[in-house]
């Protein structure tokens, strides 16, 4: 089942001499349970693709479908509800609310969606437990390390009945061990039936994906072939 589909999506910023064509006719389909990575140099349109896929920005032309529903046909309220319920976001700078504890940050999307405070908090604690952060639940973001903050951000992105998790450079400035942990969490979420899209310039991060898409000047320039088994790597060398 396709969780996310982009059909001929283009995005233009500005007009006349300052016009910038950020995306040009992007077609992309991401099935439930798969992780797609989007690579490309700075300015290739990676982040724009992600914000449009998540309904945070509208395309100039083309259509975005989440779970088969075109975002352009949805009312503002319905779109807001979809973003709250079905789409999880992980941003480069985590975007945790400084005045809330780790558990409260994780539970926030549920509370905003009308889940009772206690039930939301329990779900938040459980999500933190799964990520080995139970003892950090009542800490505030500035009391957490970079790696812990990022794990809290991922817990918040995957909590509840999410269908789509979108991550923009989710390893940020993390070291390779923590970056790997972040990607393992993304894979786990996909294993539970989420579709994931990760935007990154880091090939090691992208290599966790089932499919890697390469953007160039707003166009989809290339993509990897379906993954082969590891046998070819393990053949005796000589």
């Amino acid at each position, binding site marked *: 089942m396709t969780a996310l589909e982009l059909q001929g999506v283009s995005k233009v910023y500005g007009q006349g001499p300052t016009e910038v064509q950020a995306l040009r006719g992007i077609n992309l389909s991401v099935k439930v349970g798969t992780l797609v990575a989007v690579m490309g*140099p700075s300015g290739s349109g990676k982040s724009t693709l992600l914000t449009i896929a998540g309904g945070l920005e509208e395309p100039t032309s083309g259509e975005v479908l989440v779970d088969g529903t075109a975002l352009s046909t949805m009312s503002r309220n319905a779109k807001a509800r979809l973003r709250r319920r079905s789409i999880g976001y992980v941003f480069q700078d985590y975007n945790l609310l400084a005045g809330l504890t780790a558990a409260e940050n994780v539970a926030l999307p549920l509370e905003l969606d009308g889940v009772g405070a206690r039930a939301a908090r329990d779900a938040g604690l459980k999500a933190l437990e799964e990520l080995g952060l139970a003892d950090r639940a009542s800490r505030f973001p500035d009391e957490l390390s970079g790696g812990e903050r990022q794990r809290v951000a991922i817990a918040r992105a995957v909590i509840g009945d999410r269908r789509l998790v979108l991550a923009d450079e989710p390893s940020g400035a993390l070291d390779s061990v923590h970056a790997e942990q972040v990607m393992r969490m993304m894979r786990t979420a996909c294993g539970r039936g989420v579709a994931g899209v990760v935007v990154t310039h880091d*090939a090691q991060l992208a290599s966790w994906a089932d499919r*890697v898409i390469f953007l160039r000047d707003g166009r989809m320039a290339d993509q990897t072939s379906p993954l082969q088994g590891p046998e070819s*790597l393990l053949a*005796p060398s000589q």
Partner: protein
Amino acid sequence: MSVPHALLALLSEGPKYGLQLRQEFEARTGEVWPLNVGQVYTTLQRLERDGLVESDDTGQDGPQKGFRITARGEKELAGWLRTPPDLSSPPRDELVIKVLVALRMPDTDVHEVIQVHRRYVVELMQQWTRIKEDAAPGDVSLGLAVDAELFRLDAVARWLDAADGRLTRALADAEIAGLAPDSQPAAVIPALPRPRRRLGVRR
């Protein structure tokens, strides 16, 4: 990899039989570094001849013969662990040469050539990452070996990115300078590196 030193390392844990050494060698190097197992026995004989290991006087050659490391063997092993391997660059880096050649061919899109290699490198990295993902959580040796491959390939991917960016910038500079914007970079940018000398050779 160095079979003699791998055997010395196994014996540094305590005396072992030939068969046991062979089995442990296979188990620890896993599938990442396949080895002709016949080498194990001949290597042990050589190590004994050089005084780096001692064997049971009683036993015949074969799987049941016991071995232990000598003080000289310990010293040799410690020295080997701390001796840096040869990390000097190869005399010719094939990928660098291909990109440099592409640059000089008027009808070839260098960015496309770079992308073909980038895709291949990322596909290889995906395969290694999947091996790491599927490995048992406690298999640190496999994790380390796969990481080494991933970091090596990552360096290639980064070089390709840097080459791509450098060429894009060079072309933009050439356009600003009023040279033909639609020409192949090599034709319009005299300052681009050319394979005048053998790249990668240390002076």
